[in-house]
């Protein structure tokens, strides 16, 4: 056994009622390296990290944790923190109404007898921010800085506790390319300062870029360990281990015939609902039957706002421009009207905008089209069960019971419920906003297959995605949007990451 291991977890088994989340998992992390932990959703990555950080305390799992050469039995997060293990969760745990300094020292205040020494706190905050490459006033409220910087504040907070092992759970999931790059650089920088990192990520390109070794989990078991220096590591190899099968083609082939234009938007302008700002500026777009159109761009480019404003003016104020459906000018004055005209919009944010998490699958699906199962306002529940079941089965949803609450489903299955509820309206035109965000490779492939089937059935589909390979892989045609403007259009032959980036960047110079 190499002596420079900082962490070794041996035969970790963790059971929840009815499920074995971890089954004899082993993981070894060498001191001073960046270790990637990958696997499909539900493979047990987060559970393993919760065992390590004491969220699941000693006694609630089987197996042994050796950290910095000693056997550890953490009873809570505090005890693992004391040993220098810090965890940064997928959902940011910052309090937005408080300042950067207040957040960094929350629960760990620079205080004597309960009275806070703010000068000291600010001084230390500046020092910590320097470490993570932030240049902000420590008194700035967290809500006033971007998501990317908020992530840095999280890391600064971890560093304030003298962390030796940093666990990052999908740190770039909510970040755009630029912020992601900065964050990855920071992780590499921390490595030079002697901080070991364990990074959970779905983005294989990032892992290839910065990690030294990879542990792959599948169904709660360790299935593979890869050393970036010794092994021949490719994306295909990782994917194969993750899903246990070859995905020869990440994007399934499509045989759709492109027909008449179904939706056309002309000279579309949208103002911010509260502030005096224009969010969408003179955008025009067109999508045909059987066509998949991508809208690429960085986060904050105005794509979601564009989609929501088209979809029955669900976003914005002072909306100008024209919408044409099947060659006819229409006024989609509210969401119900948009649905009536065959439009569907699957939201970017499943949890906040897409699903009623405390409600069951059946009612989440039927909500978009209650008239289908009701007569004079009275719902036929039996009809509802049959029709929603047919719908979710068509999308191969994995569920035990239609009355299961949607909050208990995995990300990929939640996305399928969102798609089901929109298929339930029998739409002609679908706008899918980040349809594969935060879901694993296997589920992504299934979603792509569904998109293809829809296109083959003659539907018009708009896919908004921040992952450029996805847009390129899926779309027949790509619009590039930046700062609220359409800055270019590429067909499949012209499309490449470079071509898209170039258009985004050139517009920035132009403005």
């Amino acid at each position, binding site marked *: 056994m190499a002596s420079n291991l900082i962490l070794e977890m041996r035969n970790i088994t963790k059971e929840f009622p009815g499920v074995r989340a971890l089954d004899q998992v082993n993981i070894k992390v060498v001191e001073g390296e960046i270790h990637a932990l990958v696997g499909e959703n539900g493979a047990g990555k987060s559970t393993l990290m919760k065992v390590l950080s004491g969220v699941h305390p000693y006694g609630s799992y089987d197996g042994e944790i050796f950290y910095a050469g000693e056997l550890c039995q953490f009873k809570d997060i505090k005890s693992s923190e004391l040993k220098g293990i810090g965890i940064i969760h997928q959902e940011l745990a910052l309090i937005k109404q408080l300042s950067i300094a207040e957040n960094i020292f929350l629960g760990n205040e620079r205080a004597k007898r309960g009275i806070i020494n703010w000068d000291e706190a600010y001084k230390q905050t500046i020092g910590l921010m320097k470490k993570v490459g932030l240049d902000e006033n420590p008194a700035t409220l967290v809500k006033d800085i971007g998501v990317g910087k908020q992530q840095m504040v999280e890391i600064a907070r971890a560093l304030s506790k003298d962390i030796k092992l940093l666990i990052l759970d999908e740190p770039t999931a909510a970040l755009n390319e630029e912020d992601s790059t900065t964050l990855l650089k920071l992780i590499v920088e921390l490595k030079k300062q002697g901080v070991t990192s364990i990074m959970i990520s779905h983005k294989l390109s990032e892992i290839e870029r910065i990690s030294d070794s990879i542990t792959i989990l599948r169904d709660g078991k360790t299935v593979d360990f890869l050393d970036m220096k010794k092994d021949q590591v490719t994306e295909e190899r990782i994917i194969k281990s993750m899903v246990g099968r070859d995905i020869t083609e990440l994007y399934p082939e499509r045989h759709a015939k492109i027909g008449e234009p179904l939706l056309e938007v002309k000279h579309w302008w949208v103002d911010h609902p509260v502030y005096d700002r224009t969010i969408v500026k003179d955008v025009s777009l067109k999508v045909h039957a059987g066509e998949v159109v991508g809208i690429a761009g960085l986060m904050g480019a105005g794509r979601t706002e564009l989609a*929501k404003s088209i979809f029955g003016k669900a976003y914005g104020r002072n909306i100008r421009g024209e919408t044409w459906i099947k060659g006819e000018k229409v006024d989609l004055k509210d969401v119900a009207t948009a649905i009536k005209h065959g439009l569907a919009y699957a*939201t970017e944010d499943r949890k*906040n905008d897409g699903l*009623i998490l405390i409600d069951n699958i059946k009612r989440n699906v039927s909500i978009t089209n209650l008239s289908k199962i009701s007569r004079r306002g009275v719902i036929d529940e*039996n009809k509802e069960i049959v029709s929603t079941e047919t719908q979710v089965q068509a999308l191969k949803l994995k569920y035990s019971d239609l009355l299961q609450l949607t909050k208990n489903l995995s990300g990929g299955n939640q996305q399928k419920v969102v798609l089901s509820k929109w298929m339930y309206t029998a739409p002609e035109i679908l706008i899918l906003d980040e349809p594969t965000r935060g879901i694993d490779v296997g589920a992504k492939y299934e979603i792509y297959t569904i998109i293809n089937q829809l296109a083959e059935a003659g539907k018009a589909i708009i896919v908004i995605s921040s992952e450029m390979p996805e847009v390129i892989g899926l779309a027949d045609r790509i619009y590039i949007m930046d700062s609220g403007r359409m800055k270019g259009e590429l067909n499949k032959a012209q499309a490449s990451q470079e071509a898209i980036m170039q258009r985004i960047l050139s517009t920035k110079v132009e403005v």
Partner: protein
Amino acid sequence: MSKLKDKLLKNDLIKKLLTNDKVTLLFSLFKANIRQYGMFIALIAIMTYFFFATNGISVRPLNVNNIILQNAHIIVLAVGMVLVIVTGNIDLSVGSIAAFVSAVAAVLMVRQDVPWQLATFLVLIIGLLAGAWNGFWIAYVKIPAFIVTLGGMLIFRGFTLVVLQGVTLGPLPDGFNRLSSGFLPDLIDGSNLHVLTLLVGVVFSAFYVISMVLARKRKEKYGFEVLPVWVSVVGALIVIFAINLFTFTLARHRGLPNVSIILFIVIAIYTFISKKTTVGRHIYAVGGNAEAAKLSGINTRRTMFLVYTNMGLLAAVSGIIFAARLDAATPKAGELFELDAIASAFIGGASAAGGVGTVFGAVIGALVMGVINNGMSLLGLGIDWQQVVKGMVLLLAVWFDIATKNRR
């Protein structure tokens, strides 16, 4: 919980039972509604306790009748309030609206000699408009419901004082009072038992059995799982027994009070609306996730507006029932009604976060409080201790809710 299940699974007979599909269906149904059944069982336990503590006085016909009369106005409010709470909001103005409505009714009938039927109709409209006033500010101007209805609480209390000029107004016409304190006429005069009341019990039992059989048939037609026949039969027998015990008890006094008919209609209508209609679905969706509901094509503003307008209407019904029982409109009528109604909804399983709660639960919640109040009065405990106990019950009920939720 799971350990207990493991242990049980070792026993062959229980294993057979537990792995039987229909029995599991029964279990899952029970689990899904544990909160409601829990409160229902608590209600029965409380009633049993007072039965023994008061040597049976608590279930005497006169007392059962009193419990209904004393709590009818709160039950009506609780039915409206649970819908408000399901949307994730609150209505603090209902007590003041009830008072205002009863004040206007009294002035119309006593000072203006308006026929009581017309006066009742007019004040129902006034309640509706008062609710619409709240609804307008909440749904369309987007002012938080807490503030709008706190304002409404003051505004309508003020109006009540203005209308009554600070004094109690009564007596009210007999016809009006009979809405609350009258009884169903009997078929046979001079009988010891109220025959029509017994008949109502029998008709309801038959109605219950028929609708249950029809529901089973419909489910079978769709090929869904249904509960084992014996479970349905036992369930039906219990319900029939309960209905007839209730009507028999009241028949020994003076029969069904008129207000019980009003209550039944209100509860039936709102149970139907919340469970079976698209409007009901919209209310739950808005409370569960307003943004998702809006993006699913639901007119969330109109839904909110309707819920508050409806609350105003039910507050008017409540005010009418209360004034009719009191035989007068008083400036202080309706004080703290809003808190009783809110407590009823929460005791009955509604969640302050919205999206969760049932009409049936709210009614049970109101009855739990009513039965405790009544029982403690019989035992000679004053209003002071009743308040303490009510507060504790509210706390315990919500604690029970959270505890069972975590285990699920």
